[in-house]
């Protein structure tokens, strides 16, 4: 287990390094470097000033040198400054990460609950299987941003029950919860399809196994057979799915946050890219990638704990 952990952590570090190098290259090709932007916002700058600023900020150095300087600073714990928010980048990153994790946690819990309930329904009542199938296909084909838009139109514009977006201004859990309902619902509905389909398939397979027949023969009630015997075994492929899906969960959060104007990692990445805030964009991107890969690793470990056959 320790060897596996060390290997995977090394792989994560290498991936982050590669992504940061590639993104640095790509961002070098984006329109407007910071000095160009300063020039646009201040007409009094002379060409000499611009040349001096380029030297001062190291923009006259080749891309590779700048990258090395940046990465040594980051490894020392110096995340630099955000151009857009005019504060140290770390000061924007951590609250955004917290907000995203809250959104992801609630919507993951809700989509697992609903998805597995649907899957169980489809597995136990074969006559309802087509309905579960139809719901799953509809849910996985719905664009996240469209669903968010429809929910805003229905619950915020027409009915006026919930806020259309933003973050709670008044403190207190009740107010924060009101702002969470629509984003969490959006993300949960889009994600539940995969859990419903795989849950149904896995439960169906387990319910046909010999040990289930033995349990029935012992006279166990159906409910106990389903939840105590079949479900724990069917949970293993679901955990595998969670490991594979961590990336798309984070991607979904980006869209959801942008639509509902929630201050989280996704919106931060989008705003930073749009505002030419390269440093913040890169840091946020790497943080999102790190969280995704750690979540994948956690799911892999959970899978090994659940399934004794996989334990070393």
């Amino acid at each position, binding site marked *: 287990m320790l060897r596996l952990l060390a290997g995977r952590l090394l792989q994560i570090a290498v991936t982050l390094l590669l992504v940061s190098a590639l993104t640095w290259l790509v961002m070098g090709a984006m329109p407007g470097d910071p000095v160009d932007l300063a020039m646009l916002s201040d007409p009094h700058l002379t060409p000499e000033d611009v040349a001096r600023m380029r030297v001062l900020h190291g923009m006259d150095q080749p891309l590779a040198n700048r990258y090395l300087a940046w990465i040594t600073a980051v490894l020392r714990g110096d995340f630099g400054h955000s151009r857009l928010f005019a504060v140290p980048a770390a000061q924007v990153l951590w609250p955004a990460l917290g907000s995203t994790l809250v959104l992801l946690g609630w919507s993951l819990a809700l989509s697992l609950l609903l998805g597995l309930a649907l899957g169980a329904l489809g597995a136990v009542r074969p006559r309802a299987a087509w309905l579960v199938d139809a719901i799953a296909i509809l849910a996985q084909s719905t664009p996240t941003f469209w669903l968010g838009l429809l929910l805003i*139109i229905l619950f915020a514009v027409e009915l006026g029950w919930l806020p259309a977006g933003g973050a709670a201004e008044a403190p207190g859990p009740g107010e924060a919860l009101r702002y969470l309902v629509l984003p969490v619902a959006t993300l949960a509905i889009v994600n539940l399809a995969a859990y419903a389909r795989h849950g149904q398939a896995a439960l169906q397979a387990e319910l046909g196994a010999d040990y289930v027949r033995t349990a029935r023969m012992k006279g166990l009630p159906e409910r106990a057979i389903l939840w105590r015997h079949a479900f724990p075994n069917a949970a293993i492929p679901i955990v595998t799915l969670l490991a594979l899906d961590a990336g798309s969960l984070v991607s979904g959060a980006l869209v959801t946050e942008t639509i509902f104007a929630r201050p989280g990692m996704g919106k931060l*990445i*989008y705003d930073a890219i749009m505002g030419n805030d390269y440093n913040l964009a890169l840091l946020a991107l790497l943080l999102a*990638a790190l969280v995704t890969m750690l979540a994948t690793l956690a799911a892999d470990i959970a899978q090994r704990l659940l399934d004794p056959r996989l334990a070393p």
Partner: protein
Amino acid sequence: MTRLGLGLALLGLLAAGAAAAPLVQAWLGHDPFLPDLLARFEPPSRAHPLGTDDLGRDILLRLLHGGRVSLAVALAVALGASGLGTAIGLLAAWAGGWTDAVLMRIADGLLALPSLPLLVVLAAVDTSRIGLPRGEALSDILRIAGILVAFGWVPVARLARAAALAQLGQDYVAAARIAGASEAWLLVRHLLPNIVTPIAVASALSVAGAILAESTLSFLGLGIQPPAPSWGNMLSGAQEMIFSAPLAAVWPGLAILLAVAGCSLVADGVRRRPG
């Protein structure tokens, strides 16, 4: 109706609508690109079957024209992702060893990353520096398709590799080698026809993902640039007028949903087909 039939029917319907866009335009007699500020937010009528948008342009016509753009991106991604994915998967399975390990670690890495933040970064790159002008419909389509292929090949390659590995151990491969078939001939003429099904399934799912990703990027303002319509950027326009014309937000999303559901149904149908 089977899943495959239903999926093909949905995709065929959307493709026919996109193909018929100039005909419908001639029949209705509007220009979907020309703003008409006197006819903003008109309700559905005989002249405008789905009403008009914030600039007085006919929504039905823009929907059909947007379908041409969105489906063109999907088609380009389908070709690119299935071609690249099949080639990489076959190469990894055939070569084995280090080539296989490196290619599959790259695939793992791409799969583990959150794709949308990366797509946003890539889509914001200024392609005019490498000679692709921004804001023109064709170069936008190529740019977005290229970015999506960079991620879309992964599932195709993994499935192609797994299927090819299973086939490489079969007797007919050994027989072909003994008969003196060159390795390239063996892979293309003997192996490829036997792994077409998993490749088709993975490609159909890649296309579904590409339609969603393209519309998401266009919605965020990074994909197809207005005034060229695409389903994604029509929704972006609709978001700004949810108070004045909420219905305008319904149609483009419905089109995306049907297209993606069509691809998923085709993938499901091909997978379940006996034989």
